[in-house]
């Protein structure tokens, strides 16, 4: 009898203390527990491998990028315009790869619970402006309108500034990628004075392609992209939202999306205004 068959039968007629089926169930349960432990151990090994390999990939990439920059900057002599174009291609490809390797490393550290919060006190507006500044070239290129709004009196928050920047950066990056030229993207922060905790809610919205409601959970899962075909407009690691969720949860917050196909997306996350001491 298979495990499911035993379980089904047990449901039909409850097992009593001296029932011979009980011994069978117990042994199946023990096997299952051992199997789960083995799978967990193997999963942890794989995560650690991912963290190690991403770390090791950074060194050769650093060499590629730095040597190419030495050529670009004319330190070893001037390049012809066509040589310069090739060298710029190496640098740009190298930097893209480095970002993706960095995302995989952050994901792997998150999965292995190796990410720690380093809280400082800062104004959310500074982070919103910083993230929009970093993305300005892309926003201009796609002729998007970006607005930043901090609603009402939001006090400084105590959180890990780099990780909050990372979350908003990933959300805004997606908003830009999935919004056609000429659309709107926005960043908005508001205080939720709810009990028992004082919470900040950040929204990253866009007028882009939107996400069907049946995919709202899927997109936060590891390695998931709603459209996995090579022609999809987005070529990231598929980890951006998984990482955002991990970093939000690390702060004790929540992340979710409100969206329909063709009607844009609004991503929200909350973080407590103060981080409880460990």
């Amino acid at each position, binding site marked *: 009898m298979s495990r499911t068959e035993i379980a089904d039968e047990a449901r039909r007629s409850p097992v009593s203390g001296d029932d011979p089926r009980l011994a069978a169930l117990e042994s199946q349960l023990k096997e299952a527990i051992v199997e789960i432990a083995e799978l967990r151990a193997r999963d942890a090994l794989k995560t650690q491998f991912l963290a190690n390999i991403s*770390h090791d990939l*950074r*060194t*050769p*990439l*650093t*060499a590629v*990028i*730095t*040597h190419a*920059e*030495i050529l*670009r*900057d004319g*330190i*070893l002599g001037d390049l012809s315009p066509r040589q310069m174009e090739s060298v710029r291609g190496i640098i740009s490809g190298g930097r893209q790869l*480095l970002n993706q390797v*960095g995302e995989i490393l952050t994901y792997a550290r998150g999965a292995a619970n190796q990410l*720690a919060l*380093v809280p*400082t006190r800062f104004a959310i507006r500074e982070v919103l402006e910083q993230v929009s500044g970093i993305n300005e070239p892309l926003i201009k290129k796609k002729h998007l309108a970006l607005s930043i709004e901090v609603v009402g009196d939001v006090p400084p928050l105590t959180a*890990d*500034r*780099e990780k909050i920047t990372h979350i908003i950066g990933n959300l805004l990056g997606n908003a830009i990628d999935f919004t056609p030229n000429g659309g709107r993207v926005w960043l908005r922060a508001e205080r939720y004075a709810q009990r028992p905790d004082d919470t900040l809610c950040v929204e990253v919205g866009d007028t882009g392609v939107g996400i069907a409601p049946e995919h709202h959970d899927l997109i936060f899962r590891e390695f998931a992209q709603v459209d996995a075909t090579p022609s999809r407009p987005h070529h990231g690691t598929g980890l951006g939202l998984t990482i955002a969720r991990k970093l939000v949860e690390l702060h004790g917050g929540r992340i979710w999306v409100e969206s329909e196909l063709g009607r844009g997306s609004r991503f929200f996350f909350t973080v407590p205004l103060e981080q409880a001491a460990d």
Partner: protein
Amino acid sequence: MPDQAHILVVEDSDIVASAMRVLVESAGHRVTTAASIADALGAARSDPADVVLLDLTLPDGDGLVLIEPLRAAGCRMFIALTGHDDQATRDRCLAAGCADVLVKPVPARELIARVAGWAEMS
């Protein structure tokens, strides 16, 4: 202060070290490279550096343990170069006595400009 400073690059990857050498030499300074803690100790004892560019992950340990013995050997300033762009790493380097912490890959032009500044300060 001498126009030419002596820079010790402690970096276990020879392809990264060779790029650093080109950059530092193009800024007009003299470079010694070391690929491990043991190498760095040997190099600094025979020829102490004005500025040490320190990789954190070395084959024989954490690069930060070099600060104390290298300072005793006469090296003056320590700059950490790390692959980890996070506050915890920066805090650890500064607490250990680094004057600055840079995330690899440091843009080539920025590194040249910074080396010039450190050489002047050291």
